[in-house]
């Protein structure tokens, strides 16, 4: 597991005081509402969507279906946007999707070095580390050491393929199905699929382990 400690808000150790920022946000929202530019109930609805409805469980369903249904997997690798929409997932920051298949020869991992592009409809909003300088700077130049911080040891003779999402394509990794999962249901398989395994910084859980 990568470096972590108990102080939730000190992501990089140099964050501005949150109270000042919170006040600035309140002032801006109240100004926009008073001018009639923004309806606060619309903001509430957006927040509710990404807090409760859209998240990495969506992507896990896509992966599990691809593991059990070869025809679906072919459609997913051919036109990811359409195949993902078959399961009801679409929209903002996932308008044009590409799915990357991990194989014994290639391990895929995604990043946005220039900002924080991320496939919202399938993975939800990105975690703080995905948007912060250490991951964005290092994963393109030294992917093996970054993945090792996540507990993932990739041998030097296996290709790591880093995808820097500099355009409007959004990438999601299709991890390899774990051994020993023959006969498991699609629903049970989806439980093995972690967010990090779809970024490429992790692998799916092994069956029988938490």
């Amino acid at each position, binding site marked *: 597991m990568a470096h972590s400690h108990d102080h939730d808000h000190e992501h990089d150790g140099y964050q501005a005081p949150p109270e000042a920022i919170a006040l600035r946000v309140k002032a801006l929202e109240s100004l926009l509402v008073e001018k009639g530019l923004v309806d606060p109930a619309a903001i509430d609805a957006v927040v509710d969507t990404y807090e409760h409805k859209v998240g990495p469980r969506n992507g896990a369903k896509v992966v599990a279906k691809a593991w059990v249904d070869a025809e679906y997997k072919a459609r997913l690798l051919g036109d990811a946007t359409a195949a993902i929409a078959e399961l009801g997932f679409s929209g903002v920051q996932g308008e044009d999707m590409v799915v990357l298949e991990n194989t014994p020869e290639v391990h895929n991992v995604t990043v946005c070095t220039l*900002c924080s592009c991320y496939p919202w409809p399938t993975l939800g909003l990105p975690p703080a580390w995905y948007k912060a300088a250490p991951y964005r700077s290092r994963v393109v130049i030294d992917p093996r050491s970054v993945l090792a911080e996540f507990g993932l040891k990739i041998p030097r003779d296996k290709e790591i393929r880093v995808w820097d999402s500099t355009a409007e394509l959004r990438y999601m990794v299709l991890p390899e199905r774990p051994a020993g999962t023959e006969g498991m249901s699609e629903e049970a398989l989806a439980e093995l699929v972690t967010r990090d395994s779809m970024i490429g910084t992790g692998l799916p859980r092994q069956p029988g382990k938490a």
Partner: protein
Amino acid sequence: MNGIHDMGGAQGYGPVFYEPDEPVFHGEWEQRVLGMFPALFATGQFHVDEFRHAIERMGPIEYLRGTYYEHWLHAFETLLVEKGLVTAGELGNGKPDSGRTATPALAPDMVAGLLATGASARMDEDKPARFKVGDEVRVVNRHPSGHTRIPRYARGKLGTVALDHGAFVYPDTVAHGKGPHPQHVYSVSFAATELWGGDAAPKDTVRIDLWDDYLEAP
């Protein structure tokens, strides 16, 4: 622009900071900023590349000190004033000069539909693709002072076209109000050794999405 945002290959930022069981938001203010994003984009007054460029213009110290949603807050404040939707005075005192003068572009009952549809940047091309899958290409060595999506670590480097994604809006012009100029975007594969030298692992590659105008025949 060669800004602080262009982080690929930089060193010295330390280990990845991983927060187990990270919440979706770290405070209510992050929720409000996230919610303003579709609410303000629905006004049709600015493009996502203008938004990205507003973040790029922050300045390195403020950029590094702030987190993701602070960058967004800064970009909203910058663009609202630049587009004339809010005056600098109003932003300073938090009160409108002349009351309610607009109607919200995003009503609550539009949210679900908007979020499920999004806004694809894919367009019909207005210039034919100059390259095809398998072609060797070199990234132009260009350092514009405005918005671009060519990471510095790729400039001048030799790669191979791996995928043709079709045509998309061109960020370098649309971020500056100079039109969409849609053109092909390719996923270009670079050997890690081409980007980082002989110490890189021999089979590793980096794939970067690059617009047609970012590339030239080697």
